[in-house]
């Protein structure tokens, strides 16, 4: 199938982009790398009247480092992270996630911001960036606002982004050298969308212990304080102190009624904890 006819604009800067999407008229869709939107357009599931391509806006492809974070433009690609073109402040965590997103040809065009804004619950960045404690910077004609990535997605394919807003950048915290990260994705084959994602970040120096249960066909479950998951014994062997019952209760509370689904999510989370425990930062499933 081919897409419905649409108009296409390619603004050179954010201000023009905001002006285009702020118009009260055509059904408008923002296009970044288009690796998720493209298939939906081709299937005519998405039927925009106007597509605004934001990938030529230099600001959205820029990177800014500070002492405690790096701010990455929304149009930076998975491959940019994978290849280290964006300096890594996460002790290898994010490059290892990037490396296992879809396929290389997709990673060369797929973007961080596009992935977050698309809000497919099975997408890696939705879970991984929430686990790492990243912040989404959102531009509108009236200014910029910042919200935690975990608050960006509101449901399947839904975010809190308003019609006149653009996800501009993602601020990723600099992890301490002692930070421990575990990420485990369950897919039936390489590059397939995830059926379960578990992510664990323990960074005691910064007082952070977070966990995410993702790919639950809804917004991921984010534990900003994941200590109960480890019997409140942070700093210990995360694998040994992992509390299956707490995790199971979480899944039930989130409405995951199917025992098979709960089982694989539990496994993903526990394996993420194990990876974090063993410091397997550079090993991937």
């Amino acid at each position, binding site marked *: 199938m081919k897409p419905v006819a649409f108009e296409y604009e390619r603004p050179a800067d954010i201000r023009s982009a905001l002006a285009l999407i702020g118009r009260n008229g055509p059904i408008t869709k923002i296009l970044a790398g288009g690796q998720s939107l493209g298939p939906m357009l081709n299937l005519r599931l998405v039927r925009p009247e106007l597509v605004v391509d934001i*990938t030529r806006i230099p600001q959205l*492809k820029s990177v800014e480092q500070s002492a405690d974070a790096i701010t990455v433009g929304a149009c930076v690609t998975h491959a940019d992270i994978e290849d280290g073109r964006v300096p890594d402040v996460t002790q290898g965590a994010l490059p290892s996630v990037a490396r296992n997103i879809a396929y*290389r040809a997709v990673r060369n*065009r797929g973007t961080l911001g596009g992935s977050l804004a698309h809000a497919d619950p099975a997408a890696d960045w939705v879970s991984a960036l929430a686990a790492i404690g990243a912040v989404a910077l959102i531009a509108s004609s009236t200014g910029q606002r910042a919200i935690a990535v975990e608050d960006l997605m509101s449901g399947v394919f839904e975010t809190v982004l308003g019609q006149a807003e653009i996800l501009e950048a993602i601020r990723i915290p600099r992890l301490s050298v002692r930070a421990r990260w575990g990420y485990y994705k369950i897919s039936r084959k390489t590059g397939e969308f995830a059926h379960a994602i578990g992510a664990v970040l323990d960074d005691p120096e910064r007082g952070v212990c977070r966990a995410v249960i993702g790919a639950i*066909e809804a917004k991921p479950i984010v534990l900003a304080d994941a200590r109960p998951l480890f019997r409140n014994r942070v700093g210990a062997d995360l694998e040994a102190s992992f509390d299956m019952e707490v995790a199971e209760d979480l899944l039930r509370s989130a409405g995951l009624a199917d025992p098979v689904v709960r089982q694989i999510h539990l496994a993903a989370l526990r394996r993420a904890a194990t990876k974090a425990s063993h410091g397997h930062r550079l090993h991937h499933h």
Partner: protein
Amino acid sequence: MATVSITINGIGVEAEVEARTHLADFIREHRNLTGTHLGCEHGVCGACTVLIDGAPARSCITYAVACDGASITTVEGLEDDVSAELRDAFSREHALQCGYCTPGMLVSARDAVLRLPEPDDREIRVLLSGNLCRCTGYVGIVRAVKSVVADRRARGIAPADASGNPLGPVGSAHPAGRLTGGARGGRTTHVSAPLAVSARRDSRPLEEWRPQVTIEQRFIVHHPPEVVWAFLGRPEEVAACLPGAKLVGTPTENYIEGLLRVRAGPIAAEFAGSAEIERDVSHYAGMIRGRGKDNRSGSATRGEIAYKLSPEAGGGATRVDVTVGYTLTGMLAQFSRSGLIRDVANRLTAAFATNLEARLANGSLNQLPPVSAAELNVVTLVMSVVRDRIGRLLRRMLGQRKGT
């Protein structure tokens, strides 16, 4: 139509294209370079993989207009020594049979040879995992790639360094500017004439039909059953509780026609249809049976909403039990991730219950707030409930642990 300038296999091309024309169609239909193949047009199979500014990318989900200023290399233009070595190796190792996936496979294989330092079989397979081959079982392909890499490394050719590449999607590293002539489509997206309303009766008894998905909700409203009953007897009030619903024409007590607009992020469908209403006052029970279709996607839905009122708190309040059952057919039904559709239906049902409760609880049933806002808020609403539950659970766990 927009005018784009693209360099294809080293030759600059200016052409008029529709914005919706993807790069693969542009290459094939406009430039007659048919070596780039389409195998799915969903970005999964990899047959259409080409080089955009030197890096592999899917030409089926990249639009030609987005490649303005970029340099494209297709299989016909792969003329470097790596490609020549790969061609020999593919033939030697019987890495192709029907040849359909081969052009895209070569592009990815070239990427593997150039970038992987000393790959084992697994690394090669992972790198090629975005290219499906239905004929060879991949054995020859992996051998071919492995032999070319080994040979090149033995000759002292180091892997390529991509660290200096510009950031952002490949093909986007060119000045933005406006497209020549603007990108206005020759036609505008239209919503066609009023959708045909298909309100035919089913040719079999209703009881034969069973919904495929059933969702139950229960809530209490602080009005006596007779008030709630009367409210539910007014179709326009009931419709107003359903996000995205709009009545068409004049409803009667037992027949309505209307539209239901359903959204899941960027996906939107508009079901036009009708419903029949049955009410049994002796049991305070009602049934709404409806069906509608979205002509553009060829999708249709059929559903029923059953409700039953029971007195609560000595008759001052009412318990409403609502059961929504539906079946979806056509394009929107034909995906494996039915959980996503179910999530939307769940949210709709929850919103219906919430709105009904809100409108009834409002006290002044004749002056009701507009409901349209609910359409966007459904998700937040449901998720906030879940989040609260999880939050409570965690606080409890924390508290417990601290207490012990």
